[in-house]
């Protein structure tokens, strides 16, 4: 099912035109009639989570316009940030390896021979 199917199906989704993510989260996460489910999902930290998210979801577009994107690099808020840290380390290690290899090439022939033995 894609959005295209949905449009072709002619469904009219009612609701506010301004579907701000913060507005949706504070209803979908915090409200609704709570019924015990079979699968225990620990959303105990939801209070904390929404408070943290709210710092930026309320205005993510404005912040992006202003060039603020700290939530994308905060590991607590984004798993992308964790991946980035790994990529950074990888790049740094590759650079150091290249530097070492080029130093090896610059060694005089004799010393290189010694180094090889």
């Amino acid at each position: 099912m894609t959005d295209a199917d949905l449009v072709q199906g002619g469904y009219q989704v009612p609701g506010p035109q301004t579907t701000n993510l913060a507005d949706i989260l504070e209803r979908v996460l915090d409200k609704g009639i709570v019924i015990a489910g079979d699968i225990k999902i620990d959303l105990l930290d939801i209070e904390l989570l929404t408070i943290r998210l709210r710092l930026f979801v309320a205005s993510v577009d404005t912040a992006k316009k202003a060039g603020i994107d700290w939530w994308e690099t905060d590991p607590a808020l984004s798993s992308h940030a964790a991946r980035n840290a790994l990529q950074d380390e990888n790049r740094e290690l590759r650079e150091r390896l290249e530097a070492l290899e080029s130093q090896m090439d610059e060694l005089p022939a004799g010393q290189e021979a010694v180094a090889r033995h």
Partner: protein
Amino acid sequence: MTESGADPSDGNAIYVFAVCGAPARVAVAGLPGVAADAAVRTLPFAELTAVVQTVRAADFADEAWQARLSDTRELERYARAHHHVVTAAAAACPTVPLPLATLYHDEERARLTLTGEAGRFRAALARVAEHSEWGVKVYAAERPAQDARRPAAEGSTTQRPPAVPADNRTRPAPGAGLAYLDRKRGMQARREQRQEEALRMAETVDAEFQKVAAAARRLRPHGPDPAGEHGVQVLNATYLVAERRSGELETLTRMLQATTGARIELSGPWVPYSFVGEV
């Protein structure tokens, strides 16, 4: 997830979005829902109708949700998908939304639990019938127009104390400390005054909307905007309003904006998420 005796072999679970009042077919079959493998469908129980979807249990286990909760894009995807199904169902019949992530091992388990809660669903449906939810956010003006009457303390600083001789530079001019304290006190007083005005304004707006509403709830105010464009949010409230009265809200918003000078954001109509739980 086999502790309740469900058949673990198929690895599926039932995700419940909402419960509708009418036993009639709810047109939700074309919606994407929260999973790609199975269509959103209806599950009749106790003369009510649940809107459900079969999902892979592993994708909806606690660990999967913990990862999702720390990834804004993923969380947004699921929240919007859930909201989408709820609003589509509500367009077809009176609907009580469930929060994100209510899951059962299989259809039988879902039907059993939901049937046990039928009384609560009926009460909630009766409460919100022919009503919608409307959000109201009030932002204080960024910096209210500076008072024409400046505090006396600031005026006094214009009368400079006599110039201090060069060899005496470290000693403060007489009266400078007092003037500083007066200035500080003046700033503090103005800040408190602004806060009180903003809160009073929020109460005024809330009281006016309550006159039109059947019920009201306060939500947590949103944090400050990094770009500082919106001003400080002093009220984040939501109201249950009869459909026949919803036309009055736009006018009321405009009127209150004019009289208070605050920026007021009206959002709606929402499926009454905030008014289906027992409070």
